[in-house]
């Protein structure tokens, strides 16, 4: 089953796909053709958003770091999300913005002190995020700092959530990113340093995870700086393709 959060008749609403996946079924039973849906990021307000840095060994070396012995985890707010087929503002005063295709695990049940071998049973579903980074704004304080990773509408997420039971092995999915049709990232979730199950066990060893919390699990190698107007597609096998367009060159007065 796939579920999506869409904008419909003046409100945000959750809907399920029908069997042929050409329509979304609203809670009222009404149908919306998928081609006409206005996609919202599939997040629950208030939930905790974890993201991983340096969680693929090849990407870590590409950035000049040694693979970490403990995970680099940071948090994100909600206004940094933008839905499928949305637009991300091109940052003013920067050229080094690069897309990061990431598998997102969404917690489905409360978790506290979950064992690694039981952890995946607490995942409700999976989606895709493009966790853009803007390298010029990196600072060495709680790095990656929020000016890099929490910019409004700079984390496209979606298009939808695929139920966990429909993903046989989340640790063996191909991820690709295309910019204007050219592949710039091509990796596999098999290359994660810290697995989804390990991360859930680790986080739940010191804090309570709740349904709707998300873990953006990091990105493989392939740093490609984008230009204004670029079309960026992040695809993950068995989940879908998340499409985002970067906005135009910012006006001089913009922030």
């Amino acid at each position, binding site marked *: 089953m796939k579920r999506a959060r869409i904008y419909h008749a003046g409100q945000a609403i959750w809907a399920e796909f029908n069997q042929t996946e050409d329509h979304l079924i609203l809670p009222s039973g009404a149908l919306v053709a998928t081609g006409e849906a206005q996609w919202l990021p599939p997040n629950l*307000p*208030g*939930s*905790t958003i*974890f993201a991983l840095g340096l969680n693929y060994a090849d990407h870590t070396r590409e950035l000049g770091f040694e693979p970490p012995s403990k995970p*680099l*985890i*940071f*948090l*994100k*707010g*909600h*206004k*940094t999300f933008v839905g499928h087929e949305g637009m991300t503002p091109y*940052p003013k005063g920067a050229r080094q913005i690069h897309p990061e295709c990431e598998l997102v695990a969404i917690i489905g049940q*409360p978790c*506290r*002190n979950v064992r690694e071998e039981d952890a995946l049973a607490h995942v409700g579903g999976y989606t895709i995020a493009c966790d853009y980074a803007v390298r010029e*704004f990196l*600072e*060495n*304080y*709680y*790095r990656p*700092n*929020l*000016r890099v990773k*929490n*910019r*409004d509408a700079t984390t496209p997420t979606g298009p939808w959530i695929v139920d966990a039971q429909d993903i046989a092995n989340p640790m063996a999915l191909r991820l690709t990113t295309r910019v204007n049709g050219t592949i710039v990232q091509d990796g596999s979730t098999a290359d994660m340093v810290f697995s989804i199950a390990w991360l859930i066990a680790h*986080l739940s*060893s*010191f*804090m*309570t*995870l*709740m349904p709707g919390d998300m873990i953006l699990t990091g990105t493989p190698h392939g740093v490609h700086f984008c230009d204004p107007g670029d079309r960026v597609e992040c695809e993950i096998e068995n989940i879908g393709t998340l499409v985002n367009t970067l906005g135009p060159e910012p006006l001089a007065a913009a*922030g």
Partner: protein
Amino acid sequence: MAVEFLSFRLLSPCNLITSNILNTLNILEVMIITGTIYAVALNNRDEYERRESSFLEPPYKSPPNSPVLYIKPRNCVAVSGARVEIPADIPSLTLAPSLALLFAGTPNQPSAMALALDICETHASVFRPAIREQCRDGFLPLGEFVEWDPDILTGVCEMNVHGSQARSFDFAGLRRTPDELISELSSYMTLSDGDVLLVGAMQVRTERLDAQLVLTAPGMTGLKVTLARGLAI
């Protein structure tokens, strides 16, 4: 009146005694924050100046340009009267009494405020995010939200630790005022729809991990917190 509106719209106090998870914190009331809670580190002038020379050394290499932000996730939120369990593997706490600004109306303008006690495990480095240190369950007790009044910034607040002398704190020593913080942050992120910003005030390191604390400020209801040493997890 603002409180009622906020209670209805954003804070929805509800009784969750059936939840085993919240029961472990002994919280009978829970506060729902629909936005994201941001906090500012290194915003106390004295503390910053004490550490300033180290910011020229690795891994920092240069002083911070932008406000140094971190996020307190929802599992941290507790209400006044909460008993916050301090896990036994934590040797030392840093307590940061602070002011929480709530953005519930016009974007980037505070509409309400509450006293807050930002609790974290003491950590020297601010190079990498400190999730384990900052994000334990119950590590952000928040007082009752009342209508925003900028006069609070010129008043003197107190932190009373049961059995010790009260310590006063104020907001005159902030490196960036709330207005300056909001102005800088809003150049890349909007504060609205239930977001909260903790402006920072002072930091007190303590090895005393069983304590009753009360924060007070002029015109505001006190925030009571009990720190209780827990079992090793």
